[in-house]
């Protein structure tokens, strides 16, 4: 099964996350990561979902059945910028710190907290780079880790603004009367 990255524009209403997740759960797929937040347009959120899917096209179509879903794109094969952030609390006794500092510099990571025996590192980058850093740092002892899941944006002028979906909704669709 192939890993897919799906980007969805959704109306920011209560329950919308639950509806999207429910549709994926129904087929017993596991969500690898899911990131949601406001888009450039008030009232519209953008989701990035990473899952292993067999028939992604069918699921994308079914996502469209959800009333609050405005646009769904499978960007797996598109040129995208993908980013993820991880926070790691490391076991960092004073003797180990110089090595850790050196590694964070190599990876462009940031040290955001230092305690008596711990350090918190913020690492942002492509999912591969984040994973790479985690692999390298793991031997020092990761006490806690948190990852945001990836967010993805299509490069160049392509992609979809939230506005075009909100503004094109002029009133509502026609109602076709039933004849018999």
């Amino acid at each position: 099964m192939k890993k897919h990255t799906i980007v969805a524009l959704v109306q920011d209403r209560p329950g919308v996350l639950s509806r999207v997740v429910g549709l994926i759960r129904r087929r017993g797929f596991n969500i690898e990561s899911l990131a949601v937040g406001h888009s450039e347009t008030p009232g519209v959120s953008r989701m990035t979902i990473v899952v292993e899917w067999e028939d992604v096209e069918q699921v994308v179509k079914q996502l469209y059945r959800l009333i609050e879903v405005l646009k769904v794109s499978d960007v797996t094969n598109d040129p995208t910028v993908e980013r993820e952030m991880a926070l790691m609390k490391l076991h960092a006794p004073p003797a180990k710190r110089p090595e850790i500092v050196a590694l964070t510099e190599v990876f462009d990571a940031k040290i955001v907290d230092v305690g008596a025996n711990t350090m918190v590192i913020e690492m942002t980058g492509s999912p591969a780079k984040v994973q790479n850093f985690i692999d390298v740092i793991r031997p020092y002892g990761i006490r806690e880790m948190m990852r945001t899941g990836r967010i993805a944006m299509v490069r160049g002028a392509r992609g979809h603004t939230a506005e075009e979906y909100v503004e094109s909704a002029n009133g509502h669709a026609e109602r076709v009367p039933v004849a018999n």
Partner: protein
Amino acid sequence: MSEKRTGAQVMCEALIRNGVEVMFGIPGGAIMPFYYAMWDYRDKLRHVLCRHEQGAGHAAEGYARATGRLGVCIGTSGPGATNLVTAIADAMMDSTPILAITGQVASHVLGKDAFQETDITGITMPITKHNYLVKRAEDLPYVFEEAIYIATTGRPGPVLIDVTKDAQQATIVPDWNIKLDLPGYKPNYRPNLKQVREAIKLILSAKKPLIIAGHGVIMSGAVEELRAFAERTRIPVITTLHGIGAFPEDHPLSIGMPGMHGWVHVNRAIQECDVLFNIGGRFDDRVTGKASTFAPNAKVIHVDIDPSEIGKNVKVTVPIVADARLALQAFLNEFPPDREAFAELHGHASDWMEHIREMQAKHQPKQQYFNRADTENMSLPPHDVYAALTKALNSRGNYRVVTDVGQHQMWAAQLIDWYRPRTHITSGGAGTMGFALPAALGVAIACPNDTVWVICGDGGFQMTNQEMATIVQEGIKNVKVAVINNGYLGMVRQWQELFENKRYSGTPLSGPDFAKLAEAYYWKGITVEHTSQVEAAIEEAYATDGPVLIDFRVEREVNVFPMVPQNKSISEMILESPHKS
């Protein structure tokens, strides 16, 4: 309209504004404010008190299926709401426009396990087209308008509105100046003409074309258009279980029902056809059998209003996302005007039809099922009931038939002659036993001038038979019930006989004396044990000015044939039992 209203009054007025006249429900604590308000609107909003919320839900479905209008059902919070769940799921599977209104505990105790609190919006999320939790009375006018719009447009379906008790009680000045904001919901009704022309090219070049007509034809009111389309092209027409009535079965182009219990010649024709035009059907697995083996030679044209149906089960050559009626109108407009363009197609279609009729004559046509040699020694073969009922329906007219789920349902679909849309109402997708009697209650209210026949098994009938009381309380006289009583959960028993070596695990079923049960509910009850009594019993049902139940104690182990075993190709049909006794 700037007067003060309670939330509950707003709910009533929103329903009236949207043309609702009847509601089916049961009151309870959290929905009491709505019932309090309803009393003032009782001239315009008729409330039908059901005996179980599942019955209320199915009644709303029956009302909707008989008329195409919105059906409304009501339950209180907690168990009242969860009892609606089966009917809501049923409506989702069969694209039935219903609105379920549930009371919810007051907003300040939400999520605190209050008495009769259940997260019904959470529960019904996957089985509704959309649902709402309303905590503020101010939101009610908009939510009702949007909910009813969503339920009744595009591909129709169930919508649930859960209203907290305090929102029903709060007093507000409702704002009826509503502009729907639904950027993510824009059903596409009009077909893409380029696709239509592409499809016409395919149709005109076909040698063995077939039309499959589904539920969408009936829901969109496309019956006339379908007939014109078929007559223009002379393509044979198949009607699915929910497509029954979309095309009259006495029409020379009608060939019958496909699928698991479809006719042999229909399934063979599907396997042989080169162009398959599916209008408003969803290629359900009970139609296709093993999907990868379905219509192997066919290029498929699929018209459906729901884009997610296209390509879901069967590979499609020309997809058309549109309302069935508007799509057929577009075809009729785009067809070449001259007769010559159709000459070749008509030639092929006529040879093809002849071939199908030959197959039909060879492989057990409908008539043979009425006079089979193996029913000779039976005192009451079920087929005799259907023969007599068909005769009565045809001679008296003005009928609706509501069937439940199981053997009796398939026999009804196979053996009764169907002519008109919305005369055959059944639970197809969900296969909900217990659907028929309560659904018939809704049908009877919607169609007071028709005789509403319920055909039901003894298993399914016992699941919701309490609605007999509702029918009496409402003064409904036009419901007649035929229980096809074989003392088994018959369809399961049939599978056990055919595929599990007669291991009748959990299928033998005892029931009450159904005629006495009916009498206890102030119905007329009749028991029939022999073919010779069938016609008289049906006559008596018609002659009785009130609801009647006939307990047809049919031969116990009769099977529905033909049959395609589950997940087998529709080429592999079983025509008779291998365990002949």
